[in-house]
């Protein structure tokens, strides 16, 4: 339980920091820990994603889950200086839903199986 809590906190920190970097002034977030999975949800009114940036984000989040990375490097999630944060998140999660519109904002839901 403690480990789930730590992972979710790292993932949420990473998503929140990306929202702020996108210039969001209104950010909502929620974490739900269920019996078989954890869910992290963030919605912002930032610049939104499109084109190459959107593709890059999707590539990073679509990576297979890697427990050996999660165990060692997972603590970097939400704490990276400038780069590679979403890369780490991508290796810690099982699935995601991303809805984004340029100029309007982004809504992302992350699923992590327990």
């Amino acid at each position, binding site marked *: 339980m403690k480990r789930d809590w730590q992972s979710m906190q790292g993932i949420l920190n990473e998503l929140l920091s990306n929202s702020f970097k996108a210039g969001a002034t209104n950010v909502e977030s929620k974490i739900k820990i269920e019996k078989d999975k954890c869910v992290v949800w963030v919605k912002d009114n930032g610049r939104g994603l499109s084109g190459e940036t959107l593709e890059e984000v999707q590539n990073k989040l679509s990576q297979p889950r890697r427990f050996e990375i999660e165990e060692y490097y997972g*603590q*970097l999630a939400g704490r*990276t200086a400038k*780069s590679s944060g*979403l890369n780490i998140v991508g290796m810690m999660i099982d699935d995601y839903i991303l809805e984004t519109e340029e100029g309007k904002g982004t809504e992302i839901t992350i699923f992590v199986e327990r």
Partner: protein
Amino acid sequence: MFALIAAGFFYGFEKGIVEELREIIIAPGVLITDFFVVGSPGAALVNAGLVGLAGLILTLIAKIPVRGPIIAAIFTMAGFSLMGKTIINIWPIFLGVWLYSVIQKEKFSHFILNALFGTALAPLASSASFGLELGIWGGLVFGVMGGFLIPPLAGHFLSTHQGMNLYNVGFTAGFIGTLFAGIFRAFGPGKELLTIWGEGFNPSIMLPLILYFVSMLVIGLILSKGKLGAYLKLHREAGALVSDFVTQYGPGAAFFNMGVVGIIGTSYVVAVGGELNGPSISGILTMVGFAAFGKHAKNVAPIMLGAFLSLLVFQWSPTEPGPILGVLFGTTLAPIAGTYGSIAGIIAGFFHMAMVMNVGYLHGGLNLYNNGFAGGIVATLMVGVLKNFNNNHEGVVK
């Protein structure tokens, strides 16, 4: 790894493989112990191949796919088996990490990277057994203790430099080594640094080494079907932890990058008139391994330049052991150049040289990744300052 073993047999053994491997195994193995000198180039290469294979087999048993971080770990293990790790002294570290996984009720496979990189502390076992003469059990106990401390502390130390020091276990092991060196010294035995540094191997080693890296270029080209687009694109990466080039750009691009970085490292040593021996080849192989996990020509060059330029004003010559290793292993700071630019990278390389020549005494050579320790300190200091001057609110993707 098989190529390393084959190369070992190609170079041959003056006293026989068993005797020369025995000499390597009973050496305390602290920094800097050149196994080209303690055993022979042949025995050192066989030892390196065996240690690399041990890591690879452990990975396969754990059913972990061989991608960027595993490649970096295996090459680092093999490289340091030319100067400190042996096919015997790595096992207490594995055992310590396994014990930690059992107590945490987690699968050992989740800690495979901690186990592989954690062999930085292998000299802890050798030093206790053969240096302090505590016997096999003494070595086992100290080695297991070192291995046990790696998983919790490696994650903990990551956040101090925020992924900007690629040899993070070296940073971690530096503190653990300092603790044990302090305990050893407190009981009386000295823990002074050694310098066993081989000379005169360049004519026989250079060509095979270059061919080894050229073969990586060829394999990379074959796997990429002759296209270098992914390889060139890879240079856009800052290289901070975690940057898995195998997953992100494919094995072809990663292999090609490994070959290029290997040639850069070898060329530097030869260009300054340095020695190609166990320790310097260890530095080159570690660079090559991390070329699948963060390093590329664009982010290593400023670090190497900064470290080299420091030697124009510092008291050390570029051909001395410490400075040679400082330039090669200093590339642990490549993410600083990749993230904050070439000038920051040059400054990081400059600071790294000053730091790495100063911190070895603390752990008495028990931590083989001394440059990871020094690099972690430099990265922590620099990131702490730079992040306050570099708030990039333009980029969305971190």
